[in-house]
């Protein structure tokens, strides 16, 4: 996925100081989380009510200017983080809740079930993520849950693949055979012997997927398939702003765009750093 590539490249840039990278990622994330949680206290105006003249450039009072309806861009960027987080979180939870158990069970059982499910998952995986999400979103229509669902479908195969490949390796480990030898039930073997050993890689995938989900969500909103306006949303603001770019009203595009870039960067750096700590060898496997 895309955020993974970003993470990799930053890691190359940073060389050995991946601890610094992790820290920067963490700081960015904490910043955005605080922004989302305390949005009503930080934002100077309501994001869905006109607060001044239309298309004001950045100035005191409107540090990021106002848009074509007179909404304060700064307030919308602040509130937009809420939407980004909630959709990304819901989508990731759904994807993980489906992908992880499927990968566990299918990987452990193996055989024909494995070939069939893997084929299905791979065929989903080969679709470009955004296009698949567009298709599903277009079918389901707007709304928080629908958007989250269509993003989740795109990321289920990611979990499935990572978990399955790990399970296939781990199930031939001696301690799994040992668990069989002491008479453990398959359920117990999966929950006590296999799952704890695949979980570290899951956490990394989880944080990477949140970043990807945020980008996909922004993409969907940009195309008008996201949340119904005037709910503040970075992707929607971006698409609205690009209509005015020829008039040199740059602030409409730059600030929501910057927000997206920073949050994705934050997640990428955070997860790549996390990866370093949790499982130094898994990088190549993914």
């Amino acid at each position, binding site marked *: 996925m895309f955020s993974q590539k970003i993470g990799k490249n930053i890691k190359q840039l940073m060389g050995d100081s991946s601890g610094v990278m992790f820290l920067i990622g963490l700081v960015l994330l904490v910043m955005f989380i605080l922004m989302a949680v305390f949005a009503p206290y930080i934002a100077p105006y309501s994001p869905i009510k006109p607060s001044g003249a239309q298309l004001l450039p950045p100035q005191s009072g409107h540090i990021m200017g106002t848009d074509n309806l007179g909404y304060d861009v700064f307030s919308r960027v602040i509130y937009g983080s809420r939407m980004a987080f909630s959709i990304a979180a819901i989508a990731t939870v759904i994807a993980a809740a489906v992908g992880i158990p499927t990968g566990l069970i299918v990987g452990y059982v193996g055989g024909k079930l494995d070939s069939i499910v893997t084929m299905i998952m791979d065929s989903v995986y080969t679709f470009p993520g955004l296009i698949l999400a567009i298709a599903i979103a277009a079918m389901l229509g707007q709304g928080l849950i629908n958007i989250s669902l269509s993003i989740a479908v795109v990321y289920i195969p990611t979990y499935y693949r990572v978990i399955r490949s790990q399970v296939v390796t781990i199930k031939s480990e*001696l*301690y799994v055979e040992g668990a069989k030898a*002491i008479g453990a039930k398959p359920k117990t073997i999966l929950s006590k012997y296999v799952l704890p*050993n695949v979980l570290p890689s899951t956490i990394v995938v989880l944080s990477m997927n949140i970043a990807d989900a945020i980008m996909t969500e922004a993409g969907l909103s940009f195309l008008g398939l996201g949340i119904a306006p005037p709910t503040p949303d970075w992707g929607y603001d971006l698409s609205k702003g690009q209509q005015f770019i020829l008039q040199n009203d740059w602030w409409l595009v730059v600030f929501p765009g910057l927000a997206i870039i920073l949050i994705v960067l934050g997640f990428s750096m955070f997860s790549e750093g996390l990866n370093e700590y949790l499982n130094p060898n898994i990088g190549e496997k993914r």
Partner: protein
Amino acid sequence: MINNVVVVKNLKKYFPLKLPWLEVVLKKEKPVVKAVDELSFSIKEGEALGLVGESGSGKTTVGRSIIRLIEPTSGDIEINNTNIVNLKNEQLRQARKEFQIIFQDPMASLNPYMTIGKSVMHPLEIHNIGTPKTRKEMVLELFRRVNLIPEKEFFNRYPRQLSGGQRQRVVIARAIITNPKFIVSDEATAMLDVSVRSQVLQLMLEIKKEYNLAFLFITHDLASAKYICERIAVMYLGKIVEIAATRELFENPHHPYTKILMSSIPVPDPNFKKEKIIPKGEIPSPTNMPTGCRFRTRCPYVKKECEEIDMNLEDLGDGHLSACPFFK
């Protein structure tokens, strides 16, 4: 009369070879690897049977298939008067408290995310032995027994915090906590360094006596087999070629293969000149086994008749069985 705890009759384990589909269609006979072929032996209460042979002779396959970690192709395996070949999943699962296995690699046979206390306690939970309180007591007592002291500290440690010898003690503790009748030790000491090896061997010997266990001691190290086992079976390419009491086997080896193995044991005396018998060539491919005696391609005493003999074990008296009809 001491009872037989383990009776194995005509155990076979064939592994089908995977072929490209075109060859599967074209070939009539599907090639199989005969890893274990018509093996029969028994182990008495409190007795250790050594299973020795070089790599690829099928020792490990025997160890795993007689406790059904891999499914045997055919044959009967009686443990404690129950034929475990016919057991269904759930019955087999419950029967597993009667037989255990100790693996070769103590680093890999413990779950890295489980404290060793929990690892050893798990069989008790699975088989519902004792109460949560008494279980912990049992584990701690066993830790003391296998010399993991201070046992309370060890209880909460993770496998990575232990040395190889300590881990193997943990694995031994886990194997005996359900009070089994039979233990398979699959090269349990092969990966330990020599100083630790003797301690672990000593521990296994003591435990065997205390619990009156039947032991299948799989190894390629004749010296440790001699130390632990009452009887030794020598395996070559999936067949037992000779079984005898340990002393009898060492003093009076009958089968040419056993003779070769015996002559390969180093003697710690630089002036001792020993007659060395070197086998010819390499171990043949198990997919393309020689006809007749499987050892004939490498046997230094090979005769024309060897192409036709079946490798049936013949009794030479006193429980000494050999698969070579010559050398009477």
